[in-house]
């Protein structure tokens, strides 16, 4: 059966996918089907405009989910997948199975002339380009690219489909990511830290500032993945989180495009860096050239005053 299929294991993202899904449904006149691994989430999706919801019952590993989804969407017009790591693996497998094109991290998406027209970033965020895909087509969509749709008041039918594990890939152990479950994406204000901080203990300066601003702490890839000073859920960038807060204070980070791509849609960006040449100043609304060890305490004090 033809259809617009959406999938994400991330509940918030799954809801957001229904917004472009509904637009495509209208444009292509195909039913909108939501696939979800969560029975609880299925009810929500059923009330947000999906014509049908299928609960994927079984293991949640990418290699198990991917063939199950591929089988369900065999006749699809468009498949939209939430752009998490699991989603990206799954989407690539589905695209391979459908012999279809796949846009990675689509920022816009629309159907036109029987094709799927998308835009995405290139060169680590330096550039954007359009991609035009014949149908069937697949796209992954990053978090917070679209708002979730309003509830319709109706409730679509919910079915179930079985997922079976891929016997070739044996999961030996699972370690939850050490995090505090904080949703950086929802925070209206963020203080982001980078390599300008010489030691983990120095992050207290940023914590204090975040306190004064009622902001959450965020960081660059290096701080999370190389130094492990902050959990990865706080890391902003091309392979991390994408955020759009009202205020983004970047302290001691140079502003490489791979980081900025995750925060450049913030309403106001403030940069604090001792290197006047740092690209962050070009990406910022306001900046202070100065040593963060001097500037942050002063700023914190001034905000508290």
């Amino acid at each position, binding site marked *: 059966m033809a259809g617009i299929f959406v999938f994400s294991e991330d509940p918030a993202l799954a809801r957001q996918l229904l917004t472009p899904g509904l637009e495509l449904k209208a444009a292509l006149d195909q039913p909108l089907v939501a696939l979800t691994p969560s029975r609880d989430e299925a009810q929500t999706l059923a009330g947000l405009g999906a014509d049908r919801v299928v609960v994927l019952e079984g293991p949640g590993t990418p290699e198990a989910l991917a063939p199950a989804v591929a089988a369900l969407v065999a006749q699809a017009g468009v498949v939209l997948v939430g752009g998490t790591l699991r989603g990206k693996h799954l989407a690539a497998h589905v695209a391979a199975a459908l012999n279809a094109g796949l846009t990675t991290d689509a920022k816009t998406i629309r159907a036109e002339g029987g094709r799927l027209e998308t835009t995405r970033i290139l060169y680590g965020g330096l550039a954007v380009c359009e991609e035009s895909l014949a149908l069937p087509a697949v796209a992954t969509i990053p978090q917070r690219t679209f708002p979730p749709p309003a509830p319709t008041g109706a409730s679509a039918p919910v079915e179930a489909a079985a997922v079976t594990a891929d016997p070739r890939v044996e999961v030996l152990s699972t370690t939850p990511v050490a995090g505090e479950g904080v949703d950086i994406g929802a925070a209206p204000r963020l203080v982001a830290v980078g*390599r300008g901080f010489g030691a983990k203990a120095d992050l207290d300066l940023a914590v204090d500032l975040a306190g004064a601003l009622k902001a959450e702490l965020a960081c660059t890839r290096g701080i999370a993945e190389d130094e492990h000073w902050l959990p990865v859920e706080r890391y902003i960038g091309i392979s991390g989180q994408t955020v759009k807060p009202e205020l983004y204070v970047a302290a001691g980070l140079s502003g490489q495009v791979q980081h900025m791509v995750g925060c450049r849609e913030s309403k106001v960006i403030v940069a604090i860096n001792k*290197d*006047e*040449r740092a690209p962050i100043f070009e990406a910022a609304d306001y900046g202070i050239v100065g040593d963060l060890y001097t500037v942050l305490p002063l700023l914190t004090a001034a905000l508290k005053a």
Partner: protein
Amino acid sequence: MSIKRLSPEELLGLDRFNVDEGHPHILVDKARCAVCAQRPCLTVCPARCYRLKDGQVAFDCAGCLECGTCRVVCKDKGVTSWAYPRASFGITFRCS
């Protein structure tokens, strides 16, 4: 549109650097700089890697153009060690 006067920061901003963080290729002994009367480095370093900060000579090897001027003018030998950056680090000129 006339051509702009550029600050040292803007000039260096045109260039491509790969800074070898944590491995400065030039070592400066601040104690010796403190007793240096002339401090020629402040004037002749084309990259302004040497700056006066709270009355002291502060050196930052990021932005170094690897010319060697500081090495030849440093009278009191505050530049205690001068080498080129390790391979693959430092400036890369593309159109000079």
